[in-house]
């Protein structure tokens, strides 16, 4: 009982810290409201005349634009509201311009991402157009935007130059949050094993994570790699829980869609590529460069095998990215139907259906973390496998099973 109360107190403490942090950032937010009324009026009058403004009152709603706004990275963490009523968390913008490195909060753009507001630093001028930072033009265009646009069949292209952008964007912030969550979870779990030992029954968080950790170690690592799998268990656990935590954060309505960002999945799959190939043994490389096939077809087979080294991680990258992105798009599209048909009645159909998809996404969040980890283990397994391993592997597997 007392331990439960203690756990609760711990939770309460963490909540307190999180809430305080949020409060501080909100303060920052209110402080960042535009000071000059003139700018605000300018922005408002200009916004209504922009051709690709998606939330114009009365006009048809462009669900595609709204959906992309939700799944893409941005320079501020948007919670709710539109335009100047928007409640969002400003994030730091770090740019390397022509004359140096500039740091400022994204609130200096005053919620603008259509290129109306220019931020001037040390003589260099920046605008935010659709969450990308560009060097601003000297004079605004006919709509009041400081960017040069060309519209070629509905696609808007920006001609301005871009500074090097090292900003702490929404996705980077999400990554820091997941990092802290993972550190907190796993350090406390590791400490629990240190104090109570590995033979006593798990408690609290341990009870939830121990089966998952054992699942990754025994079923994924040992099952696919076999002998010497211990070496790869830390990497597999890291990948599994990083993807899992970020998938789950992505399901929270205001969360960031980090695992649906192709750059993030690219880095993960590159790590898999490097680990697989660094650990490749003689067998693995001879399969690629000296395949067991007639020499006549080697010219076809070897290029295919070499391409396969890269195609496998690329498939990993696209699978995770596409699964998460598609899930988010489906949910926002279903909710968007209410606004397309402009009838609250549609909500009775689309909200339960969106809830259904959301629950399915909970399954997908686990499944994709599992599949990424399992395929990584499979690739590593094929790189380190000797020929006569199978019988050994099964023995180990059964032994491990009977232990638990």
């Amino acid at each position, binding site marked *: 009982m007392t331990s439960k109360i203690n756990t609760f107190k711990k939770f309460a403490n963490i909540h307190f810290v999180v809430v305080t942090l949020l409060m501080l950032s909100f303060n920052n937010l209110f402080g960042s409201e535009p000071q000059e009324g003139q700018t605000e009026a300018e922005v408002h009058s200009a916004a209504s005349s922009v051709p690709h403004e998606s939330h114009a009152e009365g006009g048809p709603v462009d669900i*595609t634009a709204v959906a992309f706004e939700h799944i893409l990275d941005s320079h501020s963490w948007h919670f709710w509201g539109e335009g100047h009523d928007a409640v969002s968390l400003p994030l730091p913008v770090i740019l390397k311009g022509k004359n140096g490195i500039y740091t400022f909060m994204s609130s200096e753009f005053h919620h603008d991402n259509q290129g109306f507001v220019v931020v001037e630093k040390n003589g260099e001028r920046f605008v935010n157009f659709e969450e990308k930072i560009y060097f601003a033009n000297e004079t605004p265009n006919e709509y009041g935007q400081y960017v040069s646009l060309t519209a070629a069949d509905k696609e808007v292209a920006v001609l301005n130059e871009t500074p090097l952008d090292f900003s702490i964007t929404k996705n980077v912030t999400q990554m820091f949050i997941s990092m802290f969550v993972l550190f907190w979870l796993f350090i406390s779990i590791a400490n629990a094993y240190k104090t109570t030992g590995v033979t006593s029954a798990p408690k609290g968080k341990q009870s939830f994570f121990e089966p998952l950790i054992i699942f990754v170690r025994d079923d994924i690592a040992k099952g696919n790699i076999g002998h010497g799998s211990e070496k790869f268990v830390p990497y597999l656990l890291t990948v599994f829980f990083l993807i899992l935590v970020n998938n789950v954060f992505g399901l929270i309505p205001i969360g960031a869609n980090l695992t649906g960002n192709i750059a993030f999945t690219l880095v993960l799959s590159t790590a898999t590529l490097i680990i697989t190939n660094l650990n490749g043994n003689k067998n693995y490389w001879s399969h690629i460069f000296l395949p067991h096939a007639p020499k006549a077809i080697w010219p076809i087979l070897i290029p295919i095998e070499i391409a396969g080294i890269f195609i496998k991680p690329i*498939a990993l990258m*696209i*699978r995770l*990215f*596409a*699964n998460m*992105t*598609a899930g988010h*798009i489906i949910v926002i599209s279903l909710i968007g139907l209410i606004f397309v048909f402009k009838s609250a009645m549609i909500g009775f159909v689309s909200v339960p259906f969106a809830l259904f998809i959301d629950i399915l996404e909970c399954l*997908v969040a686990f*499944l*994709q973390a*599992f*599949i990424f980890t*399992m395929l990584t283990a499979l690739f590593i397994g094929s790189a380190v496998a000797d020929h006569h391993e199978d019988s050994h592997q099964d023995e180990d597997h059964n032994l491990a099973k009977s232990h638990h």
Partner: protein
Amino acid sequence: MTGSIAAVGAGLAVIGAGLGIGKIGGSAMEAIARQPEAAAKIQTAMIIAAALVEGVALFGVVVALMSK
């Protein structure tokens, strides 16, 4: 006629995924009917295979999105 050819591509991807997942589901049903005690193992394998097929279908969706 107006519209995007990408929509046709997305539709074709869905047909492929439907066939694939349908085959997996059907075979899993048969397998469970033959050996009900192995249902849990079959279900796990079925879900993994279905997720892999779904992943391929989503490649199609990504292409459809990119060429919108």
